């Protein structure tokens, strides 16, 4: 395909969406948006697949004096992320058509939403393709702003606005760091192209720039302690947007980190170890918080943090492998990270869409209000269950493949002689296995509380299964997940071509034993499915002639159990929360019962879990700053004449300074 054709095509479809969508009827807006997104996806997927097969696609645009020549390139890494973005966004748009049916009356709002959805998609494609620092920043900013508007769809709610502002501010802190890093590169290398970063990172004194890049991209990705926007923005957004945000927008941060990580050549050890430690902490912290929350979208948001941690551990391993010149470790690390990016975008969007189905039908995000939904929404229940199994990394689904690669990386790193590194690896193994256990607890809790048992409260709307449009993309995702789980080599081969592209000397190590190992993992997963099916078949044969009786649940001698007596989600995770009380801080509000009160008065008891970083670190620091800045409020007193005076004063100071030769 002609390179120019792709560039103009994407821009053209975006402009078309702006012109066309506001004019259409409400039910056509979403379909048009889906159609345009599909066209954009088609335009970029073809060269992306080509890039993975070895034909890198490049185009140089003259960008004026400030930008220099803007290089547009789809190399295997970009291609990988472009394909992930396309899959997730097409699924998201199809799901969104069904999800937004309920909001058809808000025509203006809806037009804006769908236009932004198209722009959001295009901006992410640009982010993946642009290899020029400043152009990249512009695409990055468009991506942030369009996603902000997507989050703010429900702008009448104060919570949503608050989440939106939080997101906006935090993202711009990130952009500030990125800008700083890119300017640093520009000043030292005289070019804003990514090639400049590579040459810069080969020189000395690179730690500050690497740190700035990490902070800038890390805020998007949600590493602790930069993750605080995630648990607000994801629940506030409409479900198809949260699915897409969690599925791909945080991955753009990962894209940036991998892009930089692949360029680090000298002294990759320290960044690798640091990334590894932060990621390990992120994994454990994210999943512990996910375990305790009762808002199921917030739970999923924290779970995203956990998965980002796992991806980060992969990148950390790869960097350590690069520093130690251990190619097997490099392959394990990058492969784990890249495959986990794909896996997480699949099952997290699946879970968010399933959560959206629940929200559409019940209008609550509080899992303690729900229960027994498996009878009304059996298909959503099965889809959620599959997502839960996959995200826990359980075979035979795709989540296991990437976790397996991370474990293999840890074990591979044992070949190194350094004691500290070995200890780091055993800490990584411990944290990964613990996180697996906690995620089992989290998702049994979520699935059990939402879908199983009896309804815990009277819900106004009688829930039923959602429309086909809101189930179809979920089935598609499940299919892809199963294929990856059973045939992991299908994704491993393109990933190996990505890694080869970034190893200048080429991969010396034969990687057939790694692919051979993954083939066996896939076969074992297949065997597991066959075994379960076989045993279930035997069971159904055995049940043919047996009497089956249906009664009520055994109440341990109590004959009138009610739905309020069921175990709640909170009590399910209570013992874990108590064990890790220093991270999952419980905030209880109630009045102590006084001994003198004879007659009982109405009492309330509320309890919620607070975020450690927000309540213990960020908020106190901000409070101190605000106290300090309060002393300067007299400066902005709202009177224009004073502001003019400040201008004059400034000039006077300048004159005085130049007199005494300071300037």
């Amino acid at each position, binding site marked *: 395909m002609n390179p120019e054709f792709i560039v103009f095509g994407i821009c053209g479809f975006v402009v078309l969406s702006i012109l066309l969508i506001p004019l259409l009827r409400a039910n056509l807006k979403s379909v048009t948006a889906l159609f345009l997104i599909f066209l954009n996806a088609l335009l970029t997927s073809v060269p992306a697949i080509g890039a993975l097969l070895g034909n890198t696609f490049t185009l140089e645009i003259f960008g004026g004096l400030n930008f220099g020549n803007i290089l547009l390139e789809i190399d295997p890494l970009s291609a990988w992320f472009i394909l992930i973005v396309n899959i997730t966004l097409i699924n998201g748009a199809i799901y969104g058509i069904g999800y937004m049916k309920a909001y058809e009356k808000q025509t203006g709002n809806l037009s804006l939403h769908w236009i932004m959805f198209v722009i959001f998609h295009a901006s992410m494609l640009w982010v993946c393709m642009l290899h020029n620092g400043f152009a990249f920043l512009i695409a990055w900013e468009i991506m942030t702003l369009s996603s902000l508007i997507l989050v703010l769809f429900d702008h009448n709610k104060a919570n949503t606005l608050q989440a939106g502002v939080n997101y906006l501010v935090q993202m711009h802190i990130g952009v500030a760091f990125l800008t700083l890093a890119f300017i640093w590169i520009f000043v030292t290398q005289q070019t804003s192209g990514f090639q400049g970063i590579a040459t810069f990172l080969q020189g000395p004194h690179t730690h500050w720039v690497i740190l700035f890049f990490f902070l800038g991209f890390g805020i998007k990705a949600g590493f602790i302690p930069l993750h605080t926007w995630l648990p607000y923005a994801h629940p506030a957004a409409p479900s198809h947007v949260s699915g897409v945000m969690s599925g791909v927008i945080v991955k753009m941060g990962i894209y940036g980190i991998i892009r930089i990580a692949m360029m680090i050549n000298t002294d990759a050890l320290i960044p690798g170890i640091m990334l590894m430690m932060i990621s390990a902490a992120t994994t454990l912290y994210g999943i512990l918080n996910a375990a305790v929350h009762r808002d199921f979208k917030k739970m999923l948001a924290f779970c995203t943090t956990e998965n980002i941690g796992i991806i980060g551990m992969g990148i950390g391993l790869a960097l350590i492998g690069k520093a130690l010149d251990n190619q097997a470790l490099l392959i394990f690390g990058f492969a784990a990270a890249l495959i986990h990016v794909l896996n997480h975008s699949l099952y997290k969007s699946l879970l968010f869409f399933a959560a959206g189905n629940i929200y559409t039908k019940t209008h609550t995000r509080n899992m303690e209000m729900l229960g027994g939904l498996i009878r009304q929404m059996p298909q959503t229940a099965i889809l959620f269950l599959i997502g839960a199994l996959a995200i826990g990394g359980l075979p035979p689904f795709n989540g296991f493949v990437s976790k397996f690669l991370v474990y293999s990386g840890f074990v591979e790193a044992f070949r190194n002689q350094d004691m500290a590194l070995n200890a780091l690896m055993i800490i990584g193994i411990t944290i990964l296995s613990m996180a697996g*256990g906690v995620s089992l607890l989290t998702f049994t809790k979520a699935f059990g509380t939402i879908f199983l048992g009896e309804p815990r409260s009277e819900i106004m709307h009688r829930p039923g299964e959602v429309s086909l449009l809101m189930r179809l993309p979920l089935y598609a995702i499940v299919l892809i997940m199963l294929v990856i789980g059973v045939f992991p080599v299908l994704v491993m081969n393109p990933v190996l071509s990505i890694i080869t592209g970034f190893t200048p000397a080429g991969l010396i190590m034969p990687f057939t034993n790694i692919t051979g190992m993954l083939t066996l993992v896939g076969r074992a997963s297949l065997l597991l499915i066959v075994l379960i099916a076989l045993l279930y078949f035997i069971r159904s044969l055995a049940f043919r002639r*047996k009497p089956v009786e249906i009664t009520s649940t055994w109440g341990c001698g109590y004959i009138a159990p009610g739905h309020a007596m069921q175990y709640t989600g909170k009590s399910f995770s209570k*013992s874990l929360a108590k064990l890790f009380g220093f991270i999952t801080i419980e905030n209880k509000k109630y009045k102590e019962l006084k001994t003198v009160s004879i007659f009982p008065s109405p009492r309330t008891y509320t309890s919620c879990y607070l975020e450690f970083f927000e309540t213990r670190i960020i908020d106190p620091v901000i409070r101190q700053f605000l106290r300090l800045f309060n002393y300067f409020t007299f400066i902005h007193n709202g009177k224009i004449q004073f502001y003019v005076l400040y201008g004059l004063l400034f000039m006077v100071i300048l004159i005085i300074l130049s007199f005494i030769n300071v300037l």
Partner: protein
Amino acid sequence: MRMISLLLILITSFFFTGIIIRTKSILSGRKGPGIMQPMKDIIRSLRIGSVYSKTTSFIFQLAPTVYIATILMAILFIPFGNQRGVLSFNGDFVFFAYTLALGKFFMIIASLDTGSSFEGMGASREALYSMLVEPAFFIIMGSFSLLTGFTSFVDIFSAMHFGSYVTYGLGALAAFVFAIIALIENSRMPVDDPKTHLELTMIHEVMILDNSGYDLGLILYGTNLKFAMYGALIANFFHTPGYEWYYSIPIFFGVQLAFAVTVGVVESFSARFRMNHNPQFILMFTSISLLIFLGVLLLTGKII
């Protein structure tokens, strides 16, 4: 020859809980049931009809099958001396652990499916304890792969027998931790008391309160299989360097017998811990496995 460990584990599983029960009855001076009694109970369960709660869904009926399938799957990875298991690849211990976790996932949601408050309580404890016990297993397997340089069960176990007494010592320590892991995973004393009569203090027993007939039989047999599986793992630490079959098979059954008798003795002479002491007890084994890791670091000369 790859089937040998599967066959031996299946044979052991028929007797394992019988031996535990026999030990307990001898130690408490009762006549007690015969060794085959637990198996007879299981076969009876498999043949009779079932009762289901009207709250439950298909999850409840599917879960026992998944549970037993995952245990069988995990057994396929267990080697016998230098004989590979049916399945074997680099890093197979990860698959082993995660497959078992899949079965556990289904058992937990099945117990939540009944909507019973007691079963939810048991499920919550089961989830917490299996989370706490997971690191111990992974640290031990990680340490041995550090020691031997291999990452699959069979390679690790065959490389460990290079004759040094220290590796046998480490193996004994690991066998101890594996034995405790087996006790925790099967919800036996001192973490859980399978013979208790109060639902509030149960873990595993309360989760399966509503299961009956064929499904209950599967779950009970699952416990037997799990014990035999961990026993086989432990037996692998004590093989002779030459792997002569006339030593290996008696060693295998000897270790299984010793393990079963030990479980019986522990259950006869100890009381169950208070629930809130259990996490500390379980985490203690994570620290013992860290001790093994330190030992391995010493052995490989990476520390000092």
